[in-house]
């Protein structure tokens, strides 16, 4: 119980205690087979996803309409959030204990933290285990002390690198598979004034992606959590080396020169417009990018390998999720809607509208004909854990986003960046007084 607890407790600890007890009472008494309410019910859902899985809006609209047919007494209002507003918006709503009934979360820590802070109710209290076991990544990323906090919605193969063979072959280059090859391509292309990789870090998020796809090659999620709780250090070679790799991409002029003044989504357009040879895109969006350029000219792959680590050369896999808020008055209705989204008709329609993979193993992969998508989906199924989702969100924003910006601006070395990350983590263990306990319990 954090922002909720802390904010309110200042004035009335009693109220918090009361509400906590009533919530515990409510969740304990829930029986999934309980009669569905017949009174009019209105649910609000705050979500995100159109940004990385275009077509999601259409699916949400269609699914809400279809659900209305099935449950005429339930009305669902949906609100698409902005990328920058998703996390703070929900934090403020949680502090106010008013806001959505259903809330979208990114996977891993972004789904865990709200649970630790008492902002959401575990979906496993409302959705039967026989149903939940089909939801992809639910146990790896989302379970905590035997409960599953949020329900996976769609799978995010994280993050595919897209290479354009037309541009590479124009300069007699092959698609780089290893780090050394990548840097060589950078040398050649930078002389021609063509960026090898298109990226934008102005809004920060891409920093977290880079951490996961470059930094994730030499560690496992267990290592990362160990560094979070202080059993390892972010300055240890296996945690720190990737910062030097990152600096190499800057030194060898791999990126577009305006990487620091572009937002991520703006920068990806450079690749689409043929102004860069490679880029990194959100998994669900990769087929759209590939098809816009012409799938035959595009290779979808994992980040070139620099390490011999367990997950090097593998794509990460994470599921974006939907959670039920602690203050929702209709938790079982919310859960019913989530399960409705996992019925066959909705799974198929998700794929048809967005071209990305629903987070449900009952989805028939054989119905996927597009080769790009098929390859992508397969790569995500036994995928590597997605690293960014195993560090505290504040560490991500305060140490990863910022230091990636500085290294790519050329004002900080990789070594200094690693040292700073360690320093921020040490501080965080002091300011967030329950962090170590939670992370330890999560990673058991």
């Amino acid at each position, binding site marked *: 119980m954090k922002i909720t607890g802390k904010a309110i407790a200042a004035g009335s600890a009693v109220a918090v205690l009361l509400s906590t007890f009533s919530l515990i009472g409510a969740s304990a008494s829930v029986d999934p087979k309980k009669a569905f309410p017949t009174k009019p019910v209105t649910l609000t859902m705050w979500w995100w996803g159109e940004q990385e899985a275009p077509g999601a809006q259409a699916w949400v609209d269609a699914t809400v309409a279809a659900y209305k047919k099935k449950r005429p007494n339930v009305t669902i209002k949906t609100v698409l959030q902005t990328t920058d507003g998703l996390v703070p918006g929900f934090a403020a709503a949680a502090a106010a204990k008013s806001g959505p009934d259903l809330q979208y979360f990114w996977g891993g820590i972004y789904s865990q933290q709200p649970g630790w802070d008492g902002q959401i109710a575990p979906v496993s209290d409302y959705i039967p285990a026989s149903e939940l076991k089909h939801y992809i990544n639910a146990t790896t990323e989302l379970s905590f002390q035997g409960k599953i906090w949020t329900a996976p919605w769609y799978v995010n193969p994280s993050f595919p690198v897209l290479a354009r063979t037309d541009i590479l072959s124009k300069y007699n280059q092959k698609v780089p598979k290893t780090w050394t090859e990548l840097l060589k391509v950078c040398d050649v292309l930078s002389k021609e004034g063509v960026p090898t990789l298109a990226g934008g870090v102005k809004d920060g998020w891409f920093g977290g992606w880079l951490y996961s796809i470059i930094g994730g090659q030499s560690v496992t999620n267990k290592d990362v959590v160990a560094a979070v709780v202080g059993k390892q250090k972010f300055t240890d070679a296996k945690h720190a080396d990737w910062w030097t790799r990152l600096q190499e991409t800057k030194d060898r002029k791999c990126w577009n020169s305006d990487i*620091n003044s572009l937002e991520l989504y703006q920068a990806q357009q450079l690749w689409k417009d043929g102004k860069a040879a490679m880029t990194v895109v959100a998994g669900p969006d990769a087929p759209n990018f590939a098809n816009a350029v012409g799938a035959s000219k595009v290779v979808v792959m994992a980040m070139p390998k620099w390490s011999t680590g367990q997950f090097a050369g593998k794509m990460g896999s994470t599921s974006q999720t939907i959670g039920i808020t602690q203050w929702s008055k209709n938790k079982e209705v919310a859960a019913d809607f989530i399960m409705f989204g996992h019925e066959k008709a909705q799974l198929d329609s998700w794929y048809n509208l967005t071209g990305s993979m629903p987070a449900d193993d009952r989805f028939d992969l054989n119905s996927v004909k597009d080769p790009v998508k098929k390859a992508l989906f397969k790569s995500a199924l036994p995928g590597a854990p997605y690293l960014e989702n195993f560090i505290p969100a504040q560490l991500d*924003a305060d140490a990863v986003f910022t230091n990636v910006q500085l290294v790519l601006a050329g004002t900080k070395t990789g070594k200094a960046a690693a040292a700073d990350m360690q320093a921020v983590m040490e501080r965080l263990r002091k300011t967030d007084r329950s962090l170590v306990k939670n992370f330890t319990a999560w990673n058991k």
Partner: protein
Amino acid sequence: MIKTAPSEYRVTAPRNLGAVFGRVRTSGPFLWILPAGLCVLFIFGYSVFDLVQQSFKYQGDWVGFENFSLVLTDPLFRTAIFHNFLLLFTVPILAVMSFTCAVLLFETRKGMKFYRSAVFLPYILPIPVIGVVFGQLLQLNGALNSALRAMGFESLALDWLGDPKQALWTMSGIIIWKEVGFGTILILARLISIPLETMEAARIDGAGFFRLHLQVTLPQLRAVILFYIINESIVMVSWVFNYVYVMTNGQGGPGNATVVSELYIYRSAFQNNAPELAATAALLLLLATLVFIIGFFRIQRNMSKGVFDD
């Protein structure tokens, strides 16, 4: 301005006994002030009271000065405060620019009204709009740099907001751009009210443009410039959130190059789930602005005296 009457004439005395609202009248000024007073007391008084409480607690438990030591030892907090401090350096620049602009406008007959409207326009534009528009124009390959490159100033085409070394200065440039209109109008209004004879006398003495304005006009403008300086100092310390939030996607980047105290507080509370640290930082910010509050109080007192007792 209209000549003010000596206030003694209006000292409270029993009067108007026969009027309808007898009770209201006899109760003097207080009922008049009460609604506004309560509102102000509630908004400011309650807030400060609650802020002090929150900053000594963690999840409802009394923790003494722990939050203070956590905030004060946070390098990010110190960086944020330092950035507010650096922004204060734009204040003298603003004062000089406003003074110059005002004098130029004052000395111009042709098109003065148009220039005045134009110079003042930035001040009324919403900061989010300014932030968004400048954010687009100042990209490395944005409109400003494409113009600079076209004119052959390749080396001036910097990464204005993307390079941590100059992002804060770029931001101050934008703040100057917006705030200079306010100063100009303020100073100009005062300039116009200076008796013409003063300046004519100096001119007849052979004072040139620069001497006239530096030696004769400037001293007359002391009070208004001081007011402007204090006002802008307050802006730099406590009213720059909007610029930073809009131009850096709420991050204060690149790195922490543009983090200011307001953003630190906002992010502690609404992004990092640490309202007690946010409250502590807010309290510290309030203490820091106390310096300005006292300065402001003094100036206002002197000015009020001028009005009240003349």
